[in-house]
């Protein structure tokens, strides 16, 4: 994620906004220059100097008043026309389409589901390049906001008020998304990434997400699985093949396949996962993930198990 993302669109919807933005920046910049030049000229030209004559007592001009009322009205009408055209283009109607993706905001992570295939993940959305997917945006607790600037508009995730938004990408890449509505202590670390990839890669990814992870039968990973079952991990997290569908915390079925941890606070690596399990607050101080006070050895085993969850 680099540069001025709001002017660097990667989808038709974002492009509609970006083009509008450029046009409006030019218009507004013009007005700004006009006012500034007028003011600067006036203060330079009419500055009080010794011996300057008394100012002429002018009270106003009806003609000028009408001019600077009508001119802005016309300009705003123009902007209004641009706006009306861009609204539909940047946020097309959903018609009768069923959502392809369901995104639920939690304090402080994103639950992602693909209702049509049944795949479930967190904080990392995969989409096929060049296809528009309809996203259903909801919240499990407070108000969040789903925003991937390069791919289009932001939209609030409000409990009790389901929203829909299209998402698509013209070219492959990893796009940064973030919660844009203040949602509490760790609002900062409620990021996500959107991975746009070719149809084949996307299908492969989705198949992998749907697979039930294998149970390790020996070694450190197996110990890790036992620890995971002994602790209360599964009260909040789901792992397919192990336990139900808790959504208090992210689904862990394929956590090792993801690129970020703790909703973007750190990259997903065994070392970071170790730090996270050892003491979540060292990475994300106010996270709802408790510190289980596990020994290093136990944490290592857990990490070993979770690294198998590709």
């Amino acid at each position, binding site marked *: *994620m680099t540069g*001025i*993302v709001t*002017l660097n669109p990667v989808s038709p919807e974002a492009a509609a*906004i970006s083009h*509008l*933005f450029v046009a*409006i920046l030019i218009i*507004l910049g013009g*007005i*700004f220059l006009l*006012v*500034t030049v*007028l*003011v600067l000229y006036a*203060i330079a030209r*009419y500055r009080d100097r010794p011996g*300057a004559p008394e*100012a*002429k007592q*002018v*009270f*106003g*001009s*009806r003609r*000028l*008043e009408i001019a*600077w*009322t009508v001119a*802005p*009205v016309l300009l705003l009408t123009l*902007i*209004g026309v*641009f*706006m009306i055209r861009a*609204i539909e283009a940047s*946020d097309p109607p959903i018609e009768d389409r069923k959502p392809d993706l369901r995104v639920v905001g939690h*304090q402080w992570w994103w639950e992602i589901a693909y209702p049509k295939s049944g795949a479930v993940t967190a904080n990392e959305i995969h989409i096929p390049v060049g296809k528009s997917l309809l996203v259903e945006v909801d919240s499990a607790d*407070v*108000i969040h906001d789903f925003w991937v*600037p390069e791919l289009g*508009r*932001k939209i*609030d995730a*409000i*409990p*009790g*008020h389901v929203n829909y938004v299209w998402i698509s990408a013209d070219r492959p890449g990893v796009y*940064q998304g973030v919660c*844009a*509505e*203040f*949602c*509490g*202590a760790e*609002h*900062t670390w409620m990021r996500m990434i959107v991975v746009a990839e070719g149809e084949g890669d996307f299908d492969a990814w989705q198949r992998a997400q749907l697979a039930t992870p294998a149970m390790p039968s020996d070694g450190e990973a197996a110990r890790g699985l036992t620890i995971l079952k002994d602790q209360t991990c599964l009260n909040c997290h789901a792992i397919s093949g192990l336990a139900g569908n808790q959504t208090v915390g992210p689904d862990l079925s394929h956590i090792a396949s993801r690129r970020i941890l703790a909703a*973007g606070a750190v990259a997903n690596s065994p070392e970071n996962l170790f730090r996270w399990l050892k003491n979540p607050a060292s990475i994300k*101080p*106010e996270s709802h993930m408790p510190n289980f006070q596990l020994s290093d050895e136990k944490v290592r085993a857990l990490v070993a198990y979770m690294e198998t969850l590709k």
Partner: protein
Amino acid sequence: MSDIAAADRIAPVEAEREGLLSWVASVDHKQIGIMYLLSGLVFFGLGGLEALIIRTQLAIPGNSIVTPDTFNQLFSMHGTTMIFLVIMPVMAGITTYVLPLMIGARDVAFPRLNALSFWIQLFGGILLYFSFVAGGAPNAGWFSYAPLSEPAYSFNNGVTYWILGLAGVGIGSLAGAINMAVTVLKLRVPGMTIRRLPLFAWITMVNSFLMIFALPVINAALVLLLADRLLNAHIFTPAFGGSAVLWQHYFWGFGHPEVYIMILPAFAIISEVIPVFSGKPIYGYEFVAASTVAIAFMSFAVWAHHMFAVGLGHLFDLFFGISTMAIAVPTGIKIFNWTATLYQGRIRFTTSMKFAVSFIVMFTIGGLSGVSFAVVPLDWQLTDTYYLVAHLHYVLFGGSIFAIFAGIYYWFPKMSGRMLDERIGNWHFWTTFIGFNLTFLVQHLLGMMGMPRRVFTYPDWPWWMTLNMISTIGAFTLLASVIIFLWNIRISLGAGAPAGDNPWDAWTLEWATTSPPPAENFALVPPVRGRRPLWDLAHPDRADELVAAASGE
């Protein structure tokens, strides 16, 4: 003029009291006005301190000077403080001090109510700050969006203190607004018809009406939120059938008029300062006056532009986008009239005028970025980013605070009898101007780069740290500017040049009395036959033609 009002102007002065008591027990509008200003200054210090901690935390990525929760308390308090405990009371202070003088009155319409307004407002502010020692300050933002502000998600009592503090400020301001409106309508000196009101008084009156209609909206919202927090009700909790969106409608139904409550007094100050230092009457008086009413009126029909991201439907967004653009028209009329006032003037570059002229340009930036938020799809992209932070600070700092400084440099001689030092004032102006633009100009870019608001840190991406660092340096430049300002006040109070009655060759009635004015304000109010009584007095052969602008060139 009714008999009652006339009687009030010659009413005997309250018995003299000594020392601190003479202030605490005062019902004199001048003393109350100064107390408003002082309380505003103290809270400005607190709100500024909060801002500095915020900016220090954000100077580099991954900083951990404060915990995330503390950070949230800081920005919640910063916003609430600057809006409710700085801009509103300071504007109230300037108004309370200047307005009766400007219309030739002995005091405001209800002096005791005036004192009550101040003390309730101050009490509200103290209550709000008491939260810091009572378990934690509010941490749900100055907007307290439900359900985040509900007990289920906000564990400390901060939001409850926020509600009670705001209720205090709201009730105090409401009483103040009623007082000011009645003062303008009933206590004008004979000869000062409403058409002849100085624009400061006119805009203050319009603003009072705006407050009378806007403040009950927040009070109703606060009452309902309080029911949720204290009675376990569920008005704003969707999990139990309530509506989170309803809170937003209520809050912004007040919140947007509130923006104009903060900016109209700035317009009022600028409309006095610019003409005086240009040596000319305000250009297009009637148009500035009428556009004020139009702004006040429209400010109630634009609130949903704060909610474009909520997903209320394109039609809804479209209508509010258009109404929001429409409000730019009367605002533009004002900008053009102030600029036209500069033309062919004889411009004296006092510190006050420097702030006033830069107000025009800074507020134009804020106004124009505001137009970009009226354009619905741009709002979808830019809202809740640093672009918005930049926008609102250009309106409220580059707008309201610049105007406040212009007003203080303008009226300080009247209040204290001494001139503020112009040389130090020059330093103050330039450090403020540079510091302000350093802090906030780059934030436009940060927003366009995708940095959301209200984050306590950010990823280490190219340019993010550079721009944030520039912003932080700007914030500390502003700290320097405030210190220079305080130093100026201290020096000038002791050793400033004596002001005399009318140091600026100004025209409104407050300059016809001594500086500072006596307890009864005027020994003799000069006759008022136009909008610039002291001009008419000085140039009897060239007195203003009242209807000059209305009748054409």
